[in-house]
């Protein structure tokens, strides 16, 4: 646990994706883990994520995609952030990111190339993810300071 006010993060499921169970869990989990969670729920567009991040001064955007269209829905996300002056925000993405079963290393490379800082498979250990998130946020703060 860190001192100071909790880090704010934006959470949501991108595109036309309706899978709401994991989202419910992530909300509860990151809240318990001491983050301030702005949860946009399912079917969130890139601009809605960015709007919410600007409004809440969030340090990170956590994108879920379960339904397989992640590749299409996430394309250009980092570019759009930069356009809208949010170049420095951390972008995390997780879930069943592509259609079918492709080697995770390949999927990870693909999404990193799109500008995501970290990419997670569905079976990720959430404690580990939260630890990474906290570390990344704090490193970014240091870098800025």
């Amino acid at each position, binding site marked *: 646990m860190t001192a100071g006010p909790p880090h704010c993060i934006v959470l949501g499921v991108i595109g036309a994706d309706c899978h709401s169970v994991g989202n419910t869990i992530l909300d509860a989990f990151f809240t318990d883990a001491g983050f301030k969670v702005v949860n946009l*729920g*399912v079917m969130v567009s890139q601009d809605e994520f960015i709007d919410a991040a600007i409004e809440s001064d969030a340090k990170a955007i956590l994108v879920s995609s379960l339904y397989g269209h992640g*590749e*299409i829905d996430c394309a250009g996300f980092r570019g759009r952030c930069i356009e809208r002056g949010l170049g420095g925000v951390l972008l995390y993405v997780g879930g069943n990111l592509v259609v079918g079963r492709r080697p995770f290393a390949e999927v990870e490379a693909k999404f990193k190339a799109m500008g995501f800082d970290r990419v997670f498979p569905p079976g990720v250990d959430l404690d580990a993810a939260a630890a990474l998130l906290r570390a990344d946020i704090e490193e970014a703060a240091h870098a800025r300071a």
Partner: protein
Amino acid sequence: MSSTRLDWEEMQTEREQVLQGWPTGNAVRLEEAVAYHRALPVGKRFPQAMRVAQAENLVLLQPRAGVPLIDEHIKLLKYLETEGEADVLPTTIDAYTRQNRYTEAARGIEMSLAERHALLNGFPAVNHGVDGCRKIVESVGRPLQVRHGTPDARLLAEITLAAGFTSFEGGAISYNIPYAKDVPLEKSIRDWRYVDRLAGFYEDQGAAINREPFGPLTGTLIPPCIGNAIGIIEGLLALQQGVKSLTLGYGQGGNLIQDLAAMHALREQAHEYFRAAGFVDFHLTLVFHQWMGGFPEDEAKAFAVIALGAAVAALAKAEKIIVKTPYEALGIPTKEANAQGLRATRQIVTMLQDQVVRTDHEAMRRESDLIKSEVKCLLDAVWQAGEGDWARGVVRAFADGLLDVPFAPSIYNRGRVLPMRDNEGFIRLFRSGALPFSAEIRDYHRERLEERARAERRPVGFQMVTDDIYAISKGRLKGRPR
């Protein structure tokens, strides 16, 4: 907002407008379509297959399957027909089409062509149009059903029914609340009345169409009473529009007694309500869905979950079973994995084919009676809220939380209900929100949960719900403290 039968003539203006929704809409020719249906060989008619299943005590096997390109999709279905020995075939629609985002679907088709692998999670039937869909109908030897999750499925229904599909999944509640975020129930009820009326029109013309409300809802720890009540309501709404072949669904919960009791209660109570509403000329069948929540990643464990679902479906004497695959937790399955799910299921249902496990013992009766009285509480409340009109009742009931689907994404769902397993794995209510249950029912649920809390030496609390959500994917039924 009311649920009386739509006047076919009056509906024509709306139809014209719907068909404008995407250029392919123009190709719909109703008369030709009806003639096409009437010329279909018996082996391709869904309602007929459901009748045979019931008469001959069979469980029909149906996979889920859909890929973006027509030729690939045909290859996939043929493989499932031959290697998988599927009895009836699906065409699973991609998620853009489900949201009427045909432009994005078009982009998905293009990208899939360009990148030489599927980028859509299903078959974009509207974009492919009547002719494209008809290629599928002509290429396979089994009845075809459209499986989707579309709040406004009017154009999808126009195109696929015109193409010769003989079954159409979904309903005003079950394809809205779990599948959409901000579609008002008034709207989905209106749009599904259209779909049902269209199916009813085909039926009137001698082209029978099977309709199947989506029983499992969010697929995650749904208390049987909620799924059953919604299924019965959607059945009533469909019958009102002239539908005659109806398949109600139930998603495996995991406790054997509860699953058998729920299937039994569903069949009995649906008949009761349909008859009470004055319907006589309908054919009712049940479909059982293998576990619809999170699956184990390990294939061996996934096979086990599949087999257990198959066993329950067989013992419950479902007419149809929707089959999962060993890749469920990982992604859209390959055709091989899909056929493996079918073959594992086939082995079980065939082995259990003629076995009768008497389920009229006390535990079973108690659970079945409980479910029926819960469903009655729910349906009484909807009926009252609607002042005698089911459609109106649904809208008001959801607004007031008298109907409430756990974990659903829709803002028109209160989301106050949280399910939890009891010590034997029966799905009970941890928070029942505003569900209109008697004190007796509430107490019973609470007692069963307290029993679990004692066994696990921890208080009944939200953590248990979380643990239960993960449980099956982690190899158990009930969640355990981490």
